Every structure is written in C-alpha cells, then in structure tokens.
C-alpha cells in the first residue's frame, strides 16, 4: 500500500464511505467509480452505518509480515445493517465472548506501518458495541 493509495482509501477506510449508483441504486463497498451493471459513472457517496453482526470468524495465528506485530488476532465477516458484508479484524473481544451473530460496531484502529518513512496506516476494524 502506497501513500497515494492510502490517501485514496481514506474515506472508505476511515468511515466506511460507500458509493451508490444513481441509476440502479446498488450500493458498492468497497466503493466503485463505475457501476458495472448499468455502466453508469454517476455514483454518489454515502457512509455506511458501521453497525452489524458477525457472520463467521477465525483467529489468525500466523500473520503475514505486515501484521506480525499484532500477534494472534481475530478476523471475520461482518454483515452491516445495509446488508453489505465485509471482511475485518474483530477487536476488543475475548476468546469466550466472540461468537457468530454477535453485534458489532465500527472501530478505528492501526493497520500497519510500512516503507522507509515508517508511515502508519489506519482504518476500520470492528468491536462489540460499547
């Protein structure tokens, strides 16, 4: 992930900004610039709720190099209220607490640091509602 890429990804990564086709109303997250169903590129921005429930999960015991600093961590598939499913890290949750179907909400956390400049990337994760 590069600095330019990170900048482009700020809105969706920081606040789950999706795009919606003005023609067929389909919501895209990750956002798209062109609707591949109707070939329309008049897509409007909309923020997703950030509330959802856990569909499935597992614990990453052998992370790739970027996430080694985290040690083992949970990842899962979250279904948002809008019906959209996304992959995410699940945080602030204990082994005995995490279960399929549990409610979750958006959390804003560190992803990883990379490059000579040691730039730190942040974005969405999910946690149990406070």
């Amino acid at each position, binding site marked *: 992930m590069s600095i330019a890429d990170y900048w482009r990804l700020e809105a969706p990564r920081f606040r789950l900004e999706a795009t919606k086709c003005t023609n067929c109303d389909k919501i895209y997250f990750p956002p798209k610039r062109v609707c591949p169903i109707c070939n329309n590129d008049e897509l409007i921005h909309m923020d997703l709720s950030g509330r959802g429930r856990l569909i499935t999960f597992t614990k990453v015991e*052998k992370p790739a190099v970027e996430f080694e600093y985290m040690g083992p961590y949970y990842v899962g598939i979250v279904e948002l209220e809008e019906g959209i499913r996304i992959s995410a890290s699940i945080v602030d949750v204990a082994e005995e607490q995490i279960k399929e179907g549990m409610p979750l909400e958006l959390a804003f956390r560190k*992803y990883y640091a990379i490059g000579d400049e040691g730039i730190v990337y942040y974005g969405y994760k999910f946690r149990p509602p406070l």
Partner: protein
Amino acid sequence: MNKVVVASATMTPFTDHYDRDIRDLASEAIRDIFRKTEIERSAVDGLVIGSMASMSFTNQGNLGALIASENNLNSASFTVEAGEASGQAALRAAYSLIKSGMHETVLVLGLEKVTDIVKLPEILSVVNHVNMDSRWEADIGLTLASSWAMIAKSHMSQYGITREQIASVAVKNHYNATFNPFAQFKSKLRIETILRAPALASPLTLFDTCAAADGAAAVLLTTEEKAKSFTDQYIHVKGTGLAHGTLRIAERDRLYSIPAIKKAAKDAYEMAGISPSDIDVAEVHDSFTIAELIALEEMGIFEPGQSGPATEDGRTKKDGDRPINTSGGMKARGYPFGAAGIAQVVEIYEQLLGIAGERQVADANIGVTQALAGTGGTSVVHVFGTA
C-alpha cells in the same frame, strides 16, 4: 482441426532447492524434456511460462525471454499469471497457441523459486497479495489461511463433516506421496499429528497446508500428427475450462461452495464430452486440506458433503475407487506455486500412459487436473484422455 496432445512431461524434485536459482530449475526441467523426448530444440517453437510471482520472489521478470535465450530455444514466449492457478492457466494458453495453428510445439514450463525469501511471514504476504483482494482483505489482516478456516467452518456446519475428515485429506496425500520419488514429503502423517500441530487459523493447523518449496515442471504440447513423428507416448488434451469468482470472501453467499470450480469443470467436461463418473484419476488443488474436499464436490466427483466421509473411508487413496492426488498433491508432493499446475499434468501423463510405477491406478483412461487461485478467484480445469 489439430488434436492437441501432451507428448512429454517431467519435473524437478519439489523442495527447498537452496543451491539452485530459478534458471537452474528451468534448465534442469528443460534438459530432462530433451533427454526423454526425441525432438530437436529447434522444433519447439513456443514456450509458455506459468509463474505466480517471480518479481516478488526473485526480482526477475520477463522469464520467457530469459529462459528461451538461456536455454537455446528458438521459441516465442511469454509468462501467464493467474495467481496460484498460473501453471494451469499457462497450459490453457499453450493449448490455444497450438489449436489456433500459430505454433506446432509448445513447451509449457511451470516455475517458482520461493525459498530465497526465508521468512515465512514474508512469503505469506506475497501469496496473500497475489491471490486475495489485496486492498480489502489482505491489507485488512485476512490471510489465505484464515479465509480457508472460515470456509472449513462453513463446510463443517453445512454438511456435518468432522475435523478428522478434513485432516484425512493430508493423511491420504502424504500416503500417496510415499510412492513418489519427486515428492517433498515421503513420510506418512497421522490424524493426531495434524490436529495437534501448531494452530494456523482455527480449526486449521500448520499441517492442513503446504510447506514452501521450489521447483519446475514441464510438459510438451504438440499436435497429434507431430507427436506421432517422434513418440507413441502421448495423451490427448480433451477439455479446458477457466472461470472466476469474487476475490473477496466476504461477498460469497455460501462459503462452503466455490462456484468458479464448478463452472470451470463444467466447461472442461462439456468440451471433452465426459461426465464426472468417467474420471479415473484427478489432481486437484489441495493448498489447504479443505480445498480438496470442496473441489471434489464442485467437480461432481462426490455429492456435496460426501467428500469428507469418502476421504476418511480411503476412497481417494491411490488404491481407492476414486483416486485423487496420486502424486501426493500440493500438500505432500510440494507446492512451488506456478510449477504445481504443470506437475499435476506430469502426474496425469504418467497415469494415463501406465508409467506411474507404484502410484499407478488401474485402467486410467480419463484424467483431470484442477487448479485454484486463492479461495476461488480463478479455477482452471483440464481433461486428458488416452484417446
């Protein structure tokens, strides 16, 4: 139109070749093709390389030009990449080059030098970013292992299969590999060993997946007419299929199913005019144990939910009634990504010609290979036959 055949096949051992670079591996596979085959180098007019990530692993691109010129081949060449399915996708491209009449004889070289990267987490990063949606899953913290773990949970819950049934894939493939001199692991593996191995992503452990390996595998594709001029040891390429699914696991409706495999298999079977019950032997994608179970179901070799019990019952062993991964598969034969899809063809070539030695399956007339990138981004299926 021309019938396309596989007229020679070979591979290097798959292992950590610390003393060999990507050029050495390529040269040794090419050397073996010309030792085994009564054909002049000058007759090989095409070279398709299947390689997944040579820039990431070895910092060398344009392998086609490099390998053609380093090996004195007068062959038009390019590299085909389709993630973990690169080898099988290269085979498909080579098939089309001959079928179109553009080339008569094409060497397909699967090639990957992985272990120059010593640290496993760095290798994992490459594999994840090639095969997953890098921005929206790999960069978020998902790994291929965690994706397969969630698929395994879904499959277990949907069909009631057991953890032991999943592990039995690895046990079976290690058993098969004990008969393969080119395999990375020739030792048997016990269910308990797999279950007690260090966790990878629950419910999967380290022994549910492959080790890092380097290697090259090569097959010679040509027309039947040309093949007859130099050998009677050839098999037919009867069908090919390639299909896709979303790279984002979050978007799959049913995690226990991988539609790309079903579609690729359907297209390949239709082209070959076969049905799944005609398959005598198959090499399928088993980068993770669960992948093999799902592949067998999507390919119609077993009904949904039945591949776990069938594997546990020994039906997919080399001496079972539906022999699968007689080579040992990626799990035990070894898994140098781009090379693996071509090694699958090497195994089917030997099986259909009856030269697979201790691994030989009785009356093998139809053989199938299946590859997968990630958890379903690309699947490629080929059907081969003795006639």
